[in-house]
């Protein structure tokens, strides 16, 4: 602490806390208007249905099948991206090959490309006479306008998450530990499972959770590539949208509330995973 100079008035600890009062006012006001009020409106409208009625609407057969399509497909997509994302991150960090910078930059495409465009082009490429869809059509596999299409759209939009969370951890990981394992006689497989994978695990799981969260909420690309048929490839977001289009505000509100609660649970899980990752990094 400086003791010789008189401390300027604006610097006294009491005032420092409120030196930018309007900054706080803007932050709190904006969050209230944008977040708190809409969420409160959703919950209050949903609770006005009464618990029994809420349960009935939330567990209608069409809603249950929509949750199943949404959550199971999103989980499968996130896990597939967990495997391939880790592999891609590994290749991008450890190996050098021509065009590496290009592939590294292209990974962010799903963040930048509007989802409607993604849905449009995926539907074309994976349709029966599209570039990739026509290759599997002879085997009787249809991708676009089926649940496979939903999975492809979810793979697309959740791809960057694992790569971008694993990359920095891999970059920081010292190669010495691996070399030590090797010189002690460990095989490649042993080194991978015992030395490389454990410190990467928190990052991989965080990426999978982030990708899952994004895939569950995804609307634009899925609505285009899916046929939106109930009990087949209808996802929860589209069900909410269809209910709104039919002015069935009650069903939309109740299913929307279920989705919001699931998002909150995933957000909580992601925070836990990130805290775990930080602890791992500090050790």
């Amino acid at each position, binding site marked *: 602490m400086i003791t010789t*100079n008189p401390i*300027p008035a604006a*610097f006294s600890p009491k005032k420092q806390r409120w030196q930018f009062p309007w*900054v706080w006012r*803007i932050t709190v006001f*904006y*969050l209230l208007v*944008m977040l708190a009020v*809409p969420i409160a*409106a*959703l919950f209050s409208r949903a609770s006005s249905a009464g618990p029994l009625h809420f349960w009935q609407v939330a567990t209608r057969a069409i809603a249950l099948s929509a949750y199943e399509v949404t959550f199971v497909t999103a989980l499968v997509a996130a896990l597939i991206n967990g495997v*391939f994302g880790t*592999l*891609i991150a*590994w*290749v*991008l960090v450890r190996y050098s*090959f021509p065009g590496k910078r290009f*592939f590294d*930059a*292209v*990974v*962010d495409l799903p*963040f*930048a490309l*509007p989802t*409607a465009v993604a849905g*449009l*082009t*995926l539907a*074309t490429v994976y349709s029966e006479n599209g*570039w*990739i869809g026509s290759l599997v059509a002879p085997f009787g596999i249809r991708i676009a306008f089926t649940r496979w299409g939903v999975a492809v759209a979810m793979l*697309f939009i959740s*791809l*960057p998450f694992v790569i*971008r969370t694993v*990359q920095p951890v891999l970059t920081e990981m010292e*190669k010495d530990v691996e*070399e030590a394992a*090797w010189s002690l006689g460990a095989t*490649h497989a042993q080194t991978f499972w015992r030395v490389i994978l454990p410190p990467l695990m928190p990052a991989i799981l965080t990426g999978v959770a982030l990708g899952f969260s*994004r895939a569950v*909420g995804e*609307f*634009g690309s899925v*609505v*285009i590539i899916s046929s939106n048929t109930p009990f087949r490839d209808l996802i929860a*977001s*589209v069900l*909410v*949208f269809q209910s*709104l289009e039919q002015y069935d505000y009650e069903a939309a*509100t109740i299913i929307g509330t279920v*989705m*919001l609660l699931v*998002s*909150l649970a995933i*957000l909580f899980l992601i*925070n836990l995973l990130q805290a775990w990752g930080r602890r791992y990094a500090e050790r």
Partner: protein
Amino acid sequence: MRSVKPSPTQEKPWLHALLIVIAIGYLALVLLIPAANVLFQAFHKGVLPFLENLLEPDFLHAVWLTFALALVVVPLNTVFGLCAAWAIARHRFPGRTLLLSMIDLPFSISPVVAGLMLVLVYGRNGWFGGWLQALDIRVIFSFPGMVLATAFVSLPFVAREVIPVLEEIGTEQEEAAKTLGANEWQTFWRVTLPNIRWGLLYGVLLTNARVMGEFGAVAVVSGNVAGLTQTLPLFVEDAYKNYNTESAYAAAVILGLLALVTLVVKEILERKTGIKPNA
């Protein structure tokens, strides 16, 4: 280095090659082939039909509306993001982690649910519905509602990118400026802002990309009327569903260009700052 076993650092070259091929193959299947397909579909009948599609009045209106939305929402979320980042990075207070998670909330809420929430607040039967009707203000199915929806889904980006930068630069320079007699505004303008400019630009860039590309939330609150409340992403879907594939792809190319510009500027900013996306 001489060891009994071949040095594992030069592990088998075929394994390298195989992993690289799998990685690029997967990226191609999921990302690159679909991206190339946008260009192919838009231009495969030639450049002239493509240009003709771009002169449709509904398309031009959608372009204009998309830019208008960005012009309103991006500054709004930039100011808020800066305020929130400052409040969170420069102060320790109870509930700080909670506030941080709250800011992240729009990322995990489905855009359709976000739109629904706005309808429940500002719609005809919503909380403020009667009140707004008495004042003769339309929010849902018009521009203000679309502003709210896109502002909601792109809310976290600026704060998310600026907070880590603010934390990293520390407070020393700001305190030095203050002891030299600078007021709050001068300190912010001359010391803090130049320090965070790349992180801030990065956040603004991501905000802009999300605002211009948002589909779900806008689809719910806009009513999706061609030539009136239709943004470019809505135009793409509408044209596609009406078997007007050519103009759907023409509009998709314009949005694809936006993605391309975003990626290029991102790359430049990443080289300047060394930050990597985490959103």
